């Protein structure tokens, strides 16, 4: 059931997983997403906490250390696979969308 819910990721989910390709702590994730998306996507601490704890429960991310009392998280193999699947899905969407571009060129 849980896996089914995460078959497609929301934007904040996708960017959190993307950030965690390299181990990172909570605030770092928020800052990185802000930079990466040029402030288009904002992930508040409450939302980040909710998503991280959900990912931890589903073994998508793992807590790897508590450095200076700050917890650092990283993707698990399962998490990498979900991110990869999502990346492929998005690519598929884009390539399917390219047909639309071709049609407009012809006209």
């Amino acid at each position, binding site marked *: 059931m849980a896996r089914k819910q995460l078959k497609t990721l*929301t934007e*904040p989910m996708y960017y959190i997983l993307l950030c965690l390709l390299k181990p990172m702590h*909570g*605030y770092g994730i*928020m800052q990185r997403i802000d930079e990466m998306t040029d402030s288009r996507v*904002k*992930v*508040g*601490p*409450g*939302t*980040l*906490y*909710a*998503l*991280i*704890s959900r990912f931890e429960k589903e073994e998508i991310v793992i807590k790897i250390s508590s450095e200076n*009392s*700050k*917890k650092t998280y990283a993707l698990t193999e399962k998490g990498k696979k979900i991110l990869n699947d999502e990346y492929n899905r998005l690519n598929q969407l884009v390539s399917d969308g390219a047909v639309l571009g071709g049609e407009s060129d012809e006209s």
Partner: protein
Amino acid sequence: MSRDTKKVFKLHSIVEYKNLESYFAEMALKGWMLKEIKKGFYIFNKVESVALDFSVNIFYESGPFDFPDNESEKTLIEFCEDSGWHHCTGTQMYQVFYKEKDKDVLPLHTEPEEEYRYIKKIVMKTELYLLPMIIMFLWMGYINVRLFDYEDIFSNASLISKIWPFCIALLFTITVYTPFIWLIKNRINLNQNKELSYFSNRHLKVKYAFYYGLSGIYIILIGMMFFDSFSSIGLSILPLLLLLFLPMIAAIFMMKRFKRVKRDRLKNMLMYIIVSIGALVISIGGVIFLFSSDNLHLFNGKIKEETVLELSDFGDYVVKDTHLFKRHSVFTPVYVEYYESIDRENKSLNIRNVETVYIKCLNKKVAEYVFENTLKDRLKYDDNDYKFEEVPLSLWSVDEGYYLYDTKDKLVLRKDKTIIILDGDMDFTDERIITICKEKLGIDSN
């Protein structure tokens, strides 16, 4: 409580947390900064008036039935503090953060869908259990109504014992309607890509005014029950009454101890439900049984100023046993039952016992209802075709009256709003007896 500290009791559902944010901000502006939340009490410290924004973060990792999850709590606090929020205080279900009014800080929640999921989960884990309880209390109320007997109107305690399950069900319904409306309304909002919406402060003010008002009425009703009983039975019952509250105290103690050990959530929930329902049923049931029990109102002793018959009214009798039974209610302000008998061995005397039930009703309608049901009650134990013989109304100077048995040794009378039931080893058709009864019971003067 010192002048520098303020303690406010405030009930709220988990879906009303946005209203708490504005409440805390309002208090800070008045110079009261939230310090702690303990068992429904909000403790504020006196500070300089300060303009702050508060944010309440729902924290479902450990609900009321779980072992406290301090590690998760620390993680949430770490994320929020890193983003510029200050941690204020929290409970097992939510954490309160604040920031200076003009400080530009990312809101705690940026994903309404995630926020909704959190709240839904916590409602399902906490307030949902009230639903089966509402059904249970409604069922109990239905059974009580089915078992209603006309004699229940003779004492406030009996009346209250009939309606209390409905009172509890109504209070629980007021408690749970906001979370369920919130969940339905916001599911629709999210499906339509709208923001989450919250109840207005005005709505909640009305809700809680109604809630506290009803609770006040119930406390008055319970007070009436106590007052009724104490006025007739005295304070000697107090130790027994306190004893009945012991299961509740034991339940609270057990729950506190139970929580100290990490266990499966379902086990905790089951234990909480069994212990709390058990304690409630024993305590409330015991108190109601105690106060509605006829035995509590029974006195051995001589009557003083009651309007009842005594054996001495009919001759020189040495009374051996007496029983006085008194109660009253809003419908029957006076209810006296008095019985006298002589030594049963002494068969030489004609009259060996006499019993009077004297009921002063609120109005004529109530008296007619009691009169009619006394006759119906008599038929319960006899043939339904039994024809009551009417008493000579002019002789008795009453509005209605019937002999309840062919032997004419028991009868029921109604004069305006007074009901009198007489029973004894005597012939109530005898004019001398009728005259004595009328004089003693003040029927002429009524």
